[in-house]
């Protein structure tokens, strides 16, 4: 499938629990085409977050590969050392993984994960900062700020710019997290249970927001356990016994 933006191929993830091993993902494969809205469903603990982290280049599978635009995201399994990450600047794969996180992927976490010391504006702006070198930043500051204000306007938080995460409601935090994931105009937006901590009304608003983004061509991969939410996606996949199934 040549038009696939993201391909996962036989992804395995095992957690080493000392004596026993927890084989969470047992060969997950999927294709996401550009502009698609995919939902992944599964029971709690089935490994949805784990899979999404791997797809979003945040976690490394023991086996299998993820291809973005046809290029592998991870080093071949044998080179996936524990310290490769620490010395990421030395490894081409790791450098690319960082570049993907900075430019191509946006990630909305199950538990928001905002930086508590920074206010709303800064939390979003920092996602632009990481991509810029210290020298380049002065030139990029103004457009970055403009984009940030625009995206916060879009998610309806223009009047909360100076609030710290602790001073926001759950729905507002989730929207800040989405704004942060979108501020660098990612090719794919990964959202892990975006409605999980929201009430029905807030959840609906958020889904409307995502649908709106999808309508203008945003590729979205979303994890949820709520069939009602999943139904709004183009395509639903189920994660069962460590394997992805269509429908």
């Amino acid at each position, binding site marked *: 499938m040549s038009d696939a933006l993201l391909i996962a191929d036989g992804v395995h993830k095992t957690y080493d629990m000392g004596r026993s091993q927890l084989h969470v993902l047992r060969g997950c494969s999927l294709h996401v085409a550009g502009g698609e809205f995919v939902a992944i469903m599964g029971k709690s603990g089935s490994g949805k977050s784990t899979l999404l982290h791997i797809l*979003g280049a945040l976690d490394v599978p023991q086996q299998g590969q993820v291809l973005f635009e046809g290029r592998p995201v991870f080093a071949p399994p044998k080179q996936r050392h524990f310290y490769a990450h620490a010395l990421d600047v030395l490894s081409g794969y790791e450098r690319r993984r960082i570049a993907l996180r900075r430019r191509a992927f946006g990630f909305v976490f199950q538990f928001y*994960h905002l930086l508590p*010391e920074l206010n709303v504006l800064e939390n979003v702006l920092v*996602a632009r900062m990481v991509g810029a070198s210290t020298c380049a930043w002065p030139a990029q500051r103004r457009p970055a700020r403009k984009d940030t204000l625009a995206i916060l306007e879009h998610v309806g938080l223009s009047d909360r710019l100076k609030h710290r995460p602790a001073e926001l409601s759950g729905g507002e935090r989730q929207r800040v997290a989405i704004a942060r994931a979108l501020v660098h105009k990612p090719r794919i937006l990964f959202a892990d249970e975006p409605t999980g901590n929201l009430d029905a009304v807030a959840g609906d608003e958020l889904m409307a927001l995502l649908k709106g983004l999808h309508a203008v061509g945003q590729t979205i991969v979303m994890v949820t356990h709520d069939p009602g939410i999943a139904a709004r996606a183009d395509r639903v996949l189920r994660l069962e016994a460590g394997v992805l199934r269509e429908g």
Partner: protein
Amino acid sequence: MYKLFLTLRYLRKRRIAYFAIAAVMLCTAMVLIVMSVMGGFLDQLKSKARGLLGDIIIDNRSYSGFPLYEEFIADISAWPEVVKATPVLYSYGLLRFYDSPQTNTVRVVGLRLEDAYHVNAFKSSLYYERFYPGTTTLAEQQQPLLGFDLRSPPIDWRDERGEVMGQGPRPALPPPYQEALEQSWAAGVRDTESPETEYTTTMQAANLPPIAGIYGVVPGVGEPALMGEEQPGLIIGRDILAKRLPDGRYQRLWQYPRGCLVSLTLLPASEAGTLDTPVKPLLRYADDSRTGIYEIDSQHVYCDFDLLQKLLHMDTAERVDPETGTVIGTAPARCSQIQIKIREGANPRELARRLERHYHGLASDPRFQDQLSLNDIQLIHFIEGMTWEQSQAHIIAPVEKERQLVTILFGIISLVAAVLVLCILYMIVLQKTRDIGIIKAIGGSSAGVALIFITYGAACGVVGSAVGSLLGYYFVIYINDIQDWLTSLNPAWQVWDRSVYSFDAIPNTVRTGDIVAVVVAAILTSTLGSLAAAWRAGRMEPVEALRYE
């Protein structure tokens, strides 16, 4: 960019960082203070050690001394680099104040006083010479006694309240001393180094400035007098005869008035190095010297060069054949050291070597072939030319080593600051694990995250060492005031005991080089201290960090 931004954010938000900064600050201040005080101590010691010597010293480290010094001095006086050269004799002896049962072993220095005044700072170390200029001499002299000037008209005597009690004679010293005293009174020279004596009240009553030092007094109301037989003068190290008070002043004792008799027991040595029978001349205490180096001031006495030379049998003598008893020639006079003052700009090390070579050359000079015995030639070959630093190395080197040692010790103690920076940053890394995960998840690299913590550590170092060196600087500048204040609170808190150290005040200068070294070291150590934390932050997988509870 985010690195700097987040570093600043965290530095301001984390109170605990202030503890790291405070630790760096205190250690910086501590090391700077230690380096400055020890360095100042060393500088003072060096300048004082120099005071007693010339720029260059010719010495053969032999008790027997060496010959041909007059000829050598005559030769080198023509050299353009040489300003003045003077011979000096060193020996050992027993010093006993007349009437006193106490004896001291002393190092006896024979010098030509006028020459020494030119070659080194010996003159400024003398006590009586300051208040009675021109009266200190190593020549034969009597003891001056304080009396009353009965020939001039009587003057008003007053009580403590300043009211006239009646008329009385004017207290006075015998001729050369009185004139010299009045001269220094006129110049406004007053003794602030000694506690008040009984004379102070007498002189105040007579409405005259106090008399410096201690003098014998004529019995009754008599004219000032010169008493006793003429004896050669002796200058005595001040710590031998005066008591050093805790405030650094010297208490002179009534038992030791100026001009009193002292006996010196000396052991002459022959050119062959054997000892003759001891001699025991009587001398008069003419003055006392304080160079500021305790080892010298508590051991040295100074008498006339020619006198000592004669007493030690180091002057020109007939050389007698031990078997036949006939005179076979003359043995040249010997001295133990030559001190040389050189012209400014001359290279002392090079000149010292050149002088040494010239002296060695004298041993084979045809002019002196018939004078020199085999022993003499050997003594000449042991001669070394040294700069004053080289010759005083035994006093300076231990202090220099001490300074290094103490600086290193305090530097090691300062590693505590580095460890503290490490602990605190490590704590922050643990506390902020989730944030680290977030930063990595949105695209921060390991190096970038590590750099946040390294910058953080370096910032602690910069801020801490800046404040610390300022603190240390002002502490050193005001160290004597602080010490005085502490002592005023509790006398037992006197750290710098002036009766122990040779210097009156704690050195209070800070060298720029020391500040730079300490600041650089502080920044380096706190940066190093942050490395462990930075490594831990850097190698965390984003997901691992995000799941951290």
